[in-house]
């Protein structure tokens, strides 16, 4: 019995490769040295989270009216003051005049 549990634990273990994949999806560059540690930590957290699989959940999931409603409002244009616009633009790491500057994303110039 104990051996069986051990095998089951090994099977659900998360791998360094999976961590690399998650970091790729989350757009985070990980340091080589932290991957092993992160794998171990996330694995221990997932083992803890697996408890929720034991909960008996047999409830009706069809939508029913709750107490809280979404609140709609008109999508109106609000004119931002020059001062506020400056504040926002100044927070951008790079700006050119009244635009936020980014790197070119088209790889080749197209001759028109």
């Amino acid at each position, binding site marked *: 019995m104990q051996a069986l549990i051990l095998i089951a634990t090994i099977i659900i273990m*998360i791998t360094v490769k*999976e*961590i690399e994949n*998650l*970091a790729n*999806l*989350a*757009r*985070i*560059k*990980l*340091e080589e040295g*932290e991957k092993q540690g*992160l794998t171990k*930590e*996330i694995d*221990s*957290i*997932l083992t*803890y*989270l*697996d*408890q*929720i*699989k*034991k*909960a008996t*959940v047999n*409830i009706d*999931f069809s939508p029913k009216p709750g*107490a*809280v409603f*979404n*609140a*709609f*409002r008109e999508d109106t244009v609000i004119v931002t003051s020059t001062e*506020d616009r400056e*504040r*926002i633009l*100044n*927070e*951008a*790491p*790079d700006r050119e005049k009244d635009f*936020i500057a*980014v*790197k070119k*994303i088209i790889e080749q110039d197209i001759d028109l």
Partner: protein
Amino acid sequence: MIDIKNLTIKNAHEDMKSGKYSAVDLANAYIKVVNEKNKEINAYLEVFADIIEQAKEADKRFKDGTATILTGIPFAIKDNILIKGRIATAASKILDNYHATYDATVINKLKKEGVVFIGRTNMDEFAMGGSTENSAFGITKNPFDTSRVAGGSSGGSAAAMAMNGALSALGSDTGGSIRQPASFCGLVGLKPTYGRVSRYGVMAMGSSLDQIGPFAKTVTDAEIIYNVIKGQDIKDSTTINDNTYSIKKISKKPVIGVPRHFLGGDGIKKDVLDNFNESLEKFKKLDYEVIDIALPNIAYSLPAYYVIMPAEVSSNLSRFDSVRFGLHKDGKDGIDDYFLTRGAGFGREARRRILLGTYVLSSGYYDAYYNRANAVRRIITEDFVKAFEKVDIIMTPTAPAPAFKIGEKISDPVAMYLEDIFTVTANLTGMPAMSIPSGVSKVEGKDLPLGLQMTARHGEERVLFSVGKEFLGE
């Protein structure tokens, strides 16, 4: 000399109104303490340079008769709540030197009252943690014992008050981040009903869980702040109005329910349990009826929370793209900038939770984790609603132990998460909960504060206030 140690909002207001001292005098008294103590405690990340100017404005209002209960009251603000023109970092390197471009709704409301902002307080990065050790700008120490943590994530706000460096403070609470540090620092801390206080202008962590709330020395003070900051807001579509939840008429004294079956775990310290039982005895002496209740699924709260919260974190923190605001690390192209910036800007716990959230939301695991956790959240809420048919208020300790040592839990994320065992339920259910000081635990010759947590039905903060006041003799 102003006795700021024993000062409350109510007293300070009366004193300023009667001219016993001015808002400038009061501000100076707090500045003096902050200058003496902040270097060691590290409660404030920044002490504002214009405190006296703010206080002078407050004094004008006392002169022209427009002063309100909060005019001139010194406030500490958690660094994830935006004050226009001031730096707001959420204790993250990715927002180092970011200036808020607008006021949070709660700040707008406090400005209208003419409060005095003392500074912005330290926290766990993006409010992720239970000790304020995850700040990119140093650890906040507990003023009751500087070898211990102040709690978290709103540890800076709690420590600022406990060192007498502010008369009141705002924090945010996603899984206990106001109540647990309040408990560690001997304060009152309130997490209002979800939707009661606008989240507009607070940096989102777990949007279905986050609420802003007050730290105060007394329940009366917490109620005063709550009444100012609450209210429906067109800028936060999840805010509720006074009629959203029907309020149950309580004929006599509120009945107290205790989920005794949930208090027997190994993790809960004997001192905490003894103190909790003493508190219940005190309520019985005050003629309250105390009964045992069952919350059959409460043990699943913490794992369900640690699925839902990281899922929301991974979505909310995707906005840090190195283009519009915040840190920018330059790589070979746009996508490389993105990877490098997020790699350099997010600390250990933030990346841990982003990756965990990405995992539980990814296609192979979505049903097993995220959907299941949401189903569990619903059955837990139903358990509470059912329990509230018999009782009016549910009590547990706020945290399983008093403040722990700095560094004690930092290398074991699950041990740190267990800190939230009693607090996360209120965020999952959306119900209001408050921690009040209930005594001390003597550890290594120091008196460490303990907290009693009270949870009420949706929309029934007033029950928390009335019971809390009676307990503390206010």
